[in-house]
């Protein structure tokens, strides 16, 4: 039986979207969703539709910008790219997540019964 996919924690999707746009440049919603799935090794349970709420949120905060354009295969799509303020926010949020996961890793590495390694 394959391992159950991970539910996304609150707020993590926004950060993943920012990072994807920072790494890949301009992308449409489907492209962002696919990149996240691929980068996570398909370990994340992502309803692709939820990405649009995240995109609206990021856009309203001025961290990404959007523009209608045409894809490689000549299809109309809305393309998103990260703004300067978005990059600043990404740096802040990434540092926060790294600290948090470092702390979680150390706490969970505590020897004892249950959990641990």
């Amino acid at each position, binding site marked *: 039986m394959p391992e159950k996919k991970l539910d996304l924690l609150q707020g993590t999707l926004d950060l993943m979207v920012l990072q994807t746009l920072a790494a890949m440049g301009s992308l449409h919603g489907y492209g962002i969703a*696919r990149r996240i799935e691929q980068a996570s090794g398909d370990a994340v349970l992502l309803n692709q539709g939820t990405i649009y709420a995240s995109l609206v949120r990021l856009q*309203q905060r001025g961290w990404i910008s959007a523009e209608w354009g045409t894809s490689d295969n000549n299809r109309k799509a*809305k393309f998103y790219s990260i703004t300067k303020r978005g990059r600043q926010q990404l740096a802040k949020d990434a540092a926060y997540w790294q600290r948090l996961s470092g702390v979680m890793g150390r706490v969970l590495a505590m020897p004892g019964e249950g959990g641990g390694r």
Partner: protein
Amino acid sequence: MDALRQALARLRAFFRKAPLDRDMEAEMASHLAFAIEENLQRGLSPQEAGRQALVRFGGVAQSKEQHREARGLPALDVLIQDLRYTFRTLRRDRGFASVAVLILALGIGANIAVFSVVSTILLRPLPFRDPQRLVWMASERGVGGLSAVTYTVAAYEEFQRHNRSFQDVTGYDPFFGDSDFTKLTGRGEPQELSGVRVAENFLPTLGVQPALGRLFTPEECRKGGRLAVLLGHSFWQRQFAADPAIVGQALVLNNRPFTVVGVLRHPSISAPSSPWSEDGYRRPGYHG
């Protein structure tokens, strides 16, 4: 800063639902088209390609709802929905609605009526300096309500002489309703004015300052002295268009010339001066 920007964006989005919805639907349709295309390239049948695209998308209606909640003001949307429902229900049952409105109107009206009385009588302080230190001295003899609660000039002067408890004792002519110098002539149409004759120290004791000109001088308050008058603020505005040049001019009140020495501040009492003492049998009331 970002929070403010987002709040403004949400507010804007609240008023632009239709174009934003069209944009969102076009975007989601293009998303599904991309997904189907990729599935077809992987060799799925057209039917299976469409089904899988929808499965991965995970509920189009839910995604739209999430999108709307993220971009607009969902709480306000719900409130408006509730209000609409309320009005629909009220319209369906008009009898109930009108009784409810009537009860509310009566309740609110009664509250306002009671409060305006309580506010005027109990809550609002007198418009004078140190209102809590003002005392109204009134005698208790006779019948006739307030009309009987007065003192003679002689008694008033006695109070002033022996006063130790109060900073000052002053008085005014309480019978100003029927006073005989309230008819203004020579300024357009003759008119009836109301005024109060006050003692020399009446206005200073209450801490009333003139907006223009000055208060009465001792000379103007002596028996047979110069006749002088202070105008109330609203009367000054109404009758003389707030003209400051009125100070120093004469007004004919009951066929006698009074000099306008000043204008009182707003809100104010109208106070034609001059001495009740010129007319010895009038009994002044007191403020102490």
